[in-house]
């Protein structure tokens, strides 16, 4: 096996000196030529075979649907008869722009993106810094902060909706001990958004902490050593050594979290105890993702849902472009 196989197609190697006579021998023996041809084919095409499942699935379940969404968004399509498509031009889009709830959902999405991402990442940064100290039980802390990550959106939102309950919720009870009156978390504009954001923060802070911690451990130690020789305090080291080294990672987490907030759906859907898809009686916490679901699967306008999906896609493209610009500037500096 070893000898026959290493004939014609063997790449130049230590025993390369033996190759020329072997190649001549192979040319004479038809069986060996077949084998070596198969071998070369294998070497040439197997990489494509290995990556093809990914691309096949992506085309089938990502790219094609994305493009078809654009096509569907130009039609009137009802959920009850999804195959009956009636050309509507840009009607779905113009309807969107006239709909106050669309603009409302854009605003809510933006607000939630800010109030969930900013505190989350700041806390994660601080916690990662603490975890980076030499300490006991560090493995325990790391695993414990992943518990929310292992909790599903549904389970987390159900329990948070209860914690934020107006009459019997534990949060109002604790606040009541400090003399704060009962808060109707769900009904208020900002209270409901804070509550929904807190679910997102709870689920993702630990995960982001680990990502920052990994990046911090990759910071070369001599940077800290020379900083402390220069008399920099711990806080100064954090500001002037750690943060600059983490910039690419911070950008990465900002982008990922922002993309996540644009898609926010399960939390606002389940936080509403009436199980409506309006995000509260006044749409006060209806995100773009929830608005899309409401239009498509509650109001049965699939075409309009497709148009909303494309608006979301455009927003994500804009985020991606901004990200690329910032990343390029970071690399330059």
């Amino acid at each position: 096996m070893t000898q026959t196989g290493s004939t014609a197609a063997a790449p130049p190697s230590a025993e390369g000196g033996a190759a020329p006579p072997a190649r001549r021998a192979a040319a004479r023996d038809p069986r060996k030529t077949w084998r070596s041809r198969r071998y070369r084919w294998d070497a040439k095409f197997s990489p494509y075979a290995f990556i093809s499942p990914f691309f096949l699935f992506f085309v089938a379940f990502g790219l094609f649907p994305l493009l078809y969404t654009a096509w569907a968004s130009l039609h009137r399509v009802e959920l009850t008869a999804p195959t009956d498509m009636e050309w509507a031009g840009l009607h779905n889009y113009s309807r969107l722009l006239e709909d106050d709830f669309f603009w409302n959902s854009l605003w809510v999405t933006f607000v939630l993106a800010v109030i969930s991402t900013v505190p989350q990442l700041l806390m994660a940064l601080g916690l990662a810094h603490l975890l980076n100290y030499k300490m006991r039980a560090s493995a325990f802390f790391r695993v414990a902060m992943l518990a929310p990550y292992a909790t599903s959106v549904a389970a987390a939102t159900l329990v948070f909706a209860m914690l934020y309950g107006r009459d019997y919720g534990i949060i109002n009870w604790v606040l009541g001990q400090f003399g704060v009156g009962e808060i109707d978390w769900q009904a208020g504009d900002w209270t409901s958004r804070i509550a929904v954001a807190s679910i997102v923060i709870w689920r993702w802070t630990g995960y982001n902490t680990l990502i920052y911690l990994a990046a911090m451990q990759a910071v070369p130690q001599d940077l800290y050593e020379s900083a402390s020789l220069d008399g920099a305090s711990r806080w100064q080291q954090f500001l002037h050594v750690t943060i600059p080294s983490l910039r690419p990672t911070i950008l990465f987490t900002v982008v990922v979290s922002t993309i996540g907030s644009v898609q926010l759906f399960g939390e606002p859907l389940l936080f509403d105890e009436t199980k409506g898809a309006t995000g509260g009686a006044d749409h006060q916490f209806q995100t773009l993702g929830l608005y899309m679901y409401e239009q498509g699967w509650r109001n049965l306008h699939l075409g309009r849902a497709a148009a909303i999906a494309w608006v979301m896609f455009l927003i994500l493209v804009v985020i991606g472009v901004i990200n690329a610009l910032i990343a390029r500037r970071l690399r330059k500096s």
Partner: protein
Amino acid sequence: MALLKTEAPPAATRRRRRPRAGEAGGQQRAGKLTYAILALFTAISIGPLIYTAIAASRTNARLAETPPPLWFGGNLFSNMETAWTDANMDLALLNTTIVAASVAAGTVLFGTLAGFAFAKLRFRLKNLLLLLVIGTMMVPPQLSVVPLYMAIAELGWIDQLQTVILPFLVSAFGVFFMRQYLIQALPTELVEAARVDGASSLRVIWHVVFPAARPAMAVLGMLTFVFAWNEFFWPIIALTQENPTVQVALTGLPRGHNPDQSVIMAGALLGTLPLLLLLLLFGKQIVGGIMHGAVKG
């Protein structure tokens, strides 16, 4: 043999690094305040889960009293039983296990194949194709929902498990994760030696790549299992209460004016426990996987 020459998996790397780090300026020993803050944060992380269990162990009537219960009651098993039978949690847990295991298996298999090709093989357009893989991460699943729904409605696939398995069988993260691991964990000479010995690429995959990739495959499998278990948006659309996953069943629990909160919490607990168990058993590996994927990502 292969692993000896290369860098050990992330957990071991950390262990080796720690004593050295103690001497450096950036990594002093943690003070009491550090422990206090981390303990507080741990309490916040675990608190809602404990409260889920507390509420699940009480009666619904007790949950409508002030002050709210702060310790466990005796109704946990009867509430779980109600959730199990009335809320379809038995079928939901079975379905979710099938779905999450299939998605994890597909992601690991296809991720390892593609990750190996991108890490160790030479072919035309490689860098462009890799960039394309990373670019696909930008396209969130929401954008494909409308046509996919139209397709499954046409095929009569609504409520069938393959609908929520197929779209998630590959992941760009999986490809990238395996590539990053194999670049350092699989010596190129080993692959070339096997090729010189006349091994076909399938044999190389089976006898060289899989053994070297096994630790990362396990971690990727667990991360994907967690992700697939918790997948929400598409199952809500593609499945109904007739044949739900856990997330769909939880969404379908009656709420509003007079819901049985304790049963809802029992359902949430049942749907979360398998993953918490996974975290308890393999927490270190999962932590290592997230951190490993992060440094290079």
